[in-house]
């Protein structure tokens, strides 16, 4: 998301609005991806092929019970907290308050780390194997994809914090604004997963 100019100077606002549109378009792709996951979930749930959405108990295997969607909502809440912190930082940048910017970015970074830890815990402590039916497959799909999103968020919020720390956002801070767009999408995509998993 850095400025890409060659010989000719362009105004930062022009470059900023261009970058903003580019990121939004990339998010269109990601949104299509996330919505297809929701489609996958509800399609398989509706079809319940061979009654294997949640397999019943067999002689060597207990019945599969769906997990509570609570952890999904918790991760979403942590991400939402990260978003708020980031917006607090952005507000600081707007009012020329660099300390507030640095603080907000740092808290957002910490939130992304915590969310990753929590998400990892949900995956590793799930009482399933991958082959336990369609619901379980979808559970892993949402959890793993959310993890990928969170890792990206970590990368971005780390960069954002580091750049804030180095004082790169004194004169113009459209990067921070674009990172906010990403954070919003992080929350929404996590919410889509949590929402779906609430209907096992």
């Amino acid at each position, binding site marked *: *998301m*850095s*400025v*890409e*100019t*060659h*010989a*000719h*100077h*362009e105004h*930062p606002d*022009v*470059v900023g*609005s*261009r*970058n903003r*549109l*580019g990121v939004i*378009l*990339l998010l*269109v*792709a*990601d*949104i*299509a*991806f996330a919505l*297809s*996951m929701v*489609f*996958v979930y509800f*399609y*398989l749930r509706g*079809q319940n*092929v*061979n*009654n*294997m*959405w949640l*397999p019943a108990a067999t002689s060597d295997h207990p019945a599969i019970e769906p997990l509570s969607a609570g952890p999904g909502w918790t991760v979403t809440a942590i991400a939402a907290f990260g978003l708020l912190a980031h917006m607090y930082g952005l507000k600081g940048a707007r009012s020329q308050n660099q300390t507030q910017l640095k603080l907000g970015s740092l808290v957002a970074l910490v939130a992304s780390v915590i969310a990753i830890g929590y998400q990892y815990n949900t995956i590793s402590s799930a009482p399933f*194997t*991958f*082959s*336990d*039916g*369609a*619901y*379980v*497959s*979808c559970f*892993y*799909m949402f959890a793993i994809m959310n993890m990928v999103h969170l890792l990206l968020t970590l*990368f971005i919020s*780390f*960069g954002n914090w*580091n*750049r804030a*720390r*180095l004082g*790169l956002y004194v004169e*113009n801070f459209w990067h921070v604004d674009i990172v906010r767009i990403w954070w919003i999408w992080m929350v929404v995509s996590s919410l889509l997963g949590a929402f779906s998993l609430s209907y096992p």
Partner: protein
Amino acid sequence: MTTLTQHTSTAPGKSIIEKLNVFTALALGVISAVVVWRLSLAFLPEDAEGARLFSREDKITLLSMCGWFVGFMTGIGALVGPMRWVMGKDLAHDENMFLAGENMGPKRYFRYTTDHKVVGIQYLFITILIFFLGGGMAMLIRTNLGTPEGGWLHPQAYNSIVGTHGILMIVGTIIMITGPFGNFIMPIMIGARDMAFPRLNALSFWLIVAAAVPLIWGQFIGGITTGWSAYNPLAGQAPLGMDGYIMYICIFAISTMVAGANITTTVVKMRAKGMTWNRTPIFIYGTVASVALALPAFPVFFLSQILSAFDRALDTSFYNVAGGGSGWLYENLFWIMGHPEVYVILIPAIAALMEMAPVFTRRPLFSFNVAVLGIAGISGLSVLVWAHHMYISGWAPLLNAPFMLTTELISIPTGMMFLVLIGTLWRGRLWMTMPLMSIFALLWNFMIGGITGIYLSDVPADAFLHGSMYVTAHFHYTLMGAGLTGALASLVYWFPKMTGRMFDKTLSWISFWLVQIGFNVAFIGMFMVGLAGQPRRVEAYAPTFNTANLVTTIGAYTIMIGMLVLLHGVISSARNGVKASKNPWQAKTLEWTVDYPIPLENFDVLPVVTTDPYGYGKAKS
């Protein structure tokens, strides 16, 4: 950042930028693939009892391919930009100029070069390569089908060649116009100095190179035996080569998303002063519609393949029926991408020919508004018709009628495209060149493709035609007869701008007629066997189908000769063709206002546009 002055040429990253090129990328890719392979061989646990056959092998293969991918992209320098962003050391001006390939000579074609003209040439090169490989496979297929008993190709090899041919050609046709011409010509046409995101532009190209390797790799570990559509659960039981397909699609999907965001932003934000939407050339509309349509479509394909990989390597049940998965899920995901994708291919081809029509008839484009409306209508409708590929699958019989309606509605915007082209030809002065004749060829071929499309969209007729050679003939008429025809015309038309030399006229004519005649012979024959009841993707067939199959094979060889003539034309004209003037076709779009060789940032002073580019014809006196 523009405002910061880090002009220190000793910035630590810079030396790295200078060292990286395609060779370091290949080396790093291979090394990391081998390392990951050895490590996963050593440390991955054995499959649990009762797991799917080959789960562990699939894991190892997929991980090694990921290793290749990460290694290659690191080695080419894709990570430099993001890393520098995180470190807070944005690329300085001279580093950006280095990346743009300033004063670098031919070496810049082998690097992560950001200049859109370099990327355009790179795309042209890889498109030609893809068509060469895919075409060779087509010849193997047709040779095998010359006789009813097939025979000399093993069924597994045959199936794999069919699948690889299909997916190679689909990717080739997707990039054949928006890649070379969308990158090289489009920014100049709108009066911009480069793309909105030059580094993403380089990224989209090198991702395609990175994607190609798993596909080739797959050929040696069992091949892609499922056809290009890779239906599950068949793909779930296919050999390890399937992992190559999966990686290929995933990486290619990322490339299309990146290119889509980049091209769209460029057009929306960077058109020259005065280039209102009314004055924007129609080719630009076509390019944007194509990539913007791909933007939401390809992620669905991406997801379908990730789930396929999960099923294979982790033993999940998205498509695996025994565990609660569904083949219909795959079909839906695939065709939600698959139908928009065919228009991703077609729209830029038609738009390119619309751009050429006024030039070669010396009159204005007929009904610019209708052209825009047609492009918009096709794009909009194309996301609502996917289930016409699934009429016969039984997934939702009640939805057949609505999908029949939406599919047939597409003929309205399609008709608009015809109106614009034929209206522009009408009462024009025909300048008999290969691009002009390509318009007639497109009208002919696409008429056949479109009308057979209507037969196919009719559910009762499709109950007979689906899965037969008739479908194969239909989509070759559209993809090749319409799409490829437009791409070849674009090549001849923009060749002088891209190479500074004219495309050899005689060779362009010879190849045009060989390809068009061969094409019609080949695929009329294919319609015949389809109507007579020959299924598609078969390696042997009943003797009654032999004559028409032989006709098809002969047509196919004619196409091959025509394409080889064209290839010869590309090479010989680029080397020692007639030097072209700045504007050999006397066209009015902006790309014809710059001299060859085009300077790094195209325009010293950005142009200002005051009219649309279609002001041909004598005013009535």
